[in-house]
């Protein structure tokens, strides 16, 4: 597509302009497809090259591009330039603000009721747990990327550190989940600071490359440090979490037996669901609290302007390191949860694809927006499942959806950023203060 700016300055109207656009695109298509489609090659029976031409298919493709580009051009002129703020009627605006105000509480209540509504649908419960895991990862990464503006492509490293911390501590020392959970968070935070130190001076692309490398280093260490991590075989037999020491199994010691109800494997799933929900809400609550404190404001200011931060007396070193550590800690919590849920972990679960997915959730959700990240995690992970029927076309549909979101909502699903500082008194501005000229 051509840059929209050319259309905002000089909208190409009229039939000649349309035909010209269509023609140019058709020529490009002709060049591209002439070899790809126009000539079909194959190895013959004796290994020689046989080929034949398919000009019919080529012609129809070029014609389709010609027609399609005219249609797109017409649509664009009809919709108007992208990026321009459209005037929304007040009724729609108030409706949207109504939805905005009640969407988050409604979502939360619905989430709390999911195990009740879908008690007998194991598949949906598993999917909900998966979605919540990514909501938590998204909220954790949001601290680093959304608030502090540090592009981290290796977030999965902290997820891995958390998962392996719990797995190794629990299998080697038999420590309970509730002791290991904070330890996993602390260890992940420690590694976050360790990553933070070398990248203190870096920003943007350079930072992204180093964090990407860091993620790979952690994964490669997990694969190759066979004596500790079991290498590619991973760690198996990771203990399931207990409800303060009461296991959720079919034994006489189990929760079901103690409560005197019939045992069902779903109990454990429901418990896991509420566990990850609590962890995710903790992440959300801490982030919201921190945003109102000087440290959270300093993170956001750091994203905006580092020089101004220094002039205002902010220690940029500690500010960056705390952002890395906080984000990493939540990644570590999520990792510990992942390990206890799966019962088995291996380095394969912590590839770059996971980092990219979590980053996509944060960016699509609208950097810095808690609700947006939750919605993005729901639509991304839910979308994966929804399009499962499309099989090989799944990623195609998925990629298209991402492109469309970025075209129509370039700041993410929820691009609005709520301010955290308000004036205490109700604002009654006396007229003598506002009498000056407007310039």
């Amino acid at each position, binding site marked *: 597509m051509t840059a929209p700016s050319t259309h905002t300055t000089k909208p190409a109207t009229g039939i000649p302009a349309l035909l010209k656009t269509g023609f140019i695109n058709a020529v490009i298509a002709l060049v591209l497809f002439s070899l790809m489609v126009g000539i079909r090659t194959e190895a013959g029976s004796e290994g020689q090259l046989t080929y034949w031409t398919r000009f019919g298919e080529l012609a129809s493709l070029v014609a389709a591009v010609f027609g399609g580009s005219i249609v797109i051009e017409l649509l664009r002129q009809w919709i108007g330039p992208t990026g321009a703020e459209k005037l929304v009627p007040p009724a729609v605006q108030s409706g949207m603000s109504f939805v905005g105000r009640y969407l988050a509480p409604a979502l939360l209540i619905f989430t709390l009721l999911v195990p009740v509504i879908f008690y007998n649908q194991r598949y949906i419960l598993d999917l909900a747990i998966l979605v919540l895991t990514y909501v938590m990862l998204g909220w954790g990464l949001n601290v680093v990327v959304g608030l502090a503006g540090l592009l981290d492509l290796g977030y999965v490293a902290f997820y891995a550190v958390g998962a392996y911390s719990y797995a190794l501590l629990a299998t080697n020392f038999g420590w309970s989940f509730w002791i290991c959970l904070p330890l996993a968070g602390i260890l992940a935070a420690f590694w976050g600071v360790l990553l933070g130190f070398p990248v203190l001076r870096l920003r943007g692309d350079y930072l992204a490359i180093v964090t990407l490398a860091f993620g790979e280093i952690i994964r490669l260490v997990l694969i190759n440090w066979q004596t500790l991590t079991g290498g590619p075989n991973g760690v198996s037999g990771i203990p399931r979490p207990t409800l303060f020491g009461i296991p959720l199994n079919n034994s006489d010691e189990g929760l079901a037996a103690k409560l005197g109800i019939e045992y069902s494997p779903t109990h454990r799933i429901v418990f896991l669901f509420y566990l990850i929900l609590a962890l995710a809400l903790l992440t959300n609550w801490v982030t919201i609290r921190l945003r109102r404190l000087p440290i959270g404001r300093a993170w956001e*200011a750091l994203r905006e302007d580092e020089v101004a931060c*220094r002039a205002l007396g902010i220690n940029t070193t500690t500010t960056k390191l705390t952002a890395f550590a906080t984000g990493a800690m939540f990644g570590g919590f999520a990792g510990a949860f992942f390990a206890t849920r799966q019962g088995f972990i291996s380095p394969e679960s912590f590839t770059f694809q996971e980092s990219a997915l979590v980053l996509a959730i944060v960016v699509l959700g609208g950097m810095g927006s808690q609700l947006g990240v939750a919605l993005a995690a729901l639509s991304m992970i839910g979308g994966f499942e929804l399009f499962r029927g499309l099989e090989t076309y799944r990623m195609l549909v998925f990629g298209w959806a991402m492109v469309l979101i970025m075209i129509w909502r370039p700041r993410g699903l929820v691009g609005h950023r709520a301010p*955290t*500082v308000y004036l205490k008194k109700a604002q009654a501005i006396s007229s003598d203060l*506002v009498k000056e000229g407007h*310039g």
Partner: protein
Amino acid sequence: MTAASPLLAIRGLHAAYGKIEALKGVDVEINSGEIVALIGANGAGKSTLMMTIFGKPRARAGQILYEGKDITAVPTHEIAHLRIAQSPEGRRIFPRMSVAENLQMGADVTESTPAERESTLERVFALFPRLKERFAQRGGTLSGGEQQMLAIGRALMSRPRLLLLDEPSLGLAPLIARQIFDAIRTLNRQDGLTVLIVEQNANHALKLAHRGYVMVNGLITLAGSGAELLQRPEIRAAYLEGGRH
């Protein structure tokens, strides 16, 4: 010039970016309660002097004394705690944060009580009523003049004794620039704030200032009272006539 112990004394200051020397032995004194203007052409080293006071870049040689204490080696982020505030060149407000948050950022570093903070905020709003009108707006949506007011207001929120202003009139309409200069004068007269102002608009700055320094190629070439400097023929030729804003 005559005071026994100036608020800020800069002695033989050298600073450089790599091999390029920006300051080649600068001596400047600022007494408590003064407005001092630093004028000079582009690239003379005015902004570098401002930033060297804040430790970025570090001084290669020389001394910066604040209230008699050597602050030459104090880390940048700690200098703001000494009640020196800076409104940097190009304003550098936080565009995605609201006006209220921008102001709060200025107050965050200081150990001021909520009551002090409230009264400082009132003072900033009295000086720049436009900020009060726009307190919930994002900083990036303000006009250039309002952004400059916000940058100064943000610096004031730390309750400074010494305010460093780098090119406050840059890119502003003359009327707005006058408002900014008026506010600086008010701060000095009513609140006793000491101000070091770097300006290209020599006419305005020298009329406002008690004293002025002229900087050329990293050296102070002239010093004197504002009125005196305004009368000097070489100043008039270099910075005023033909270059009058």
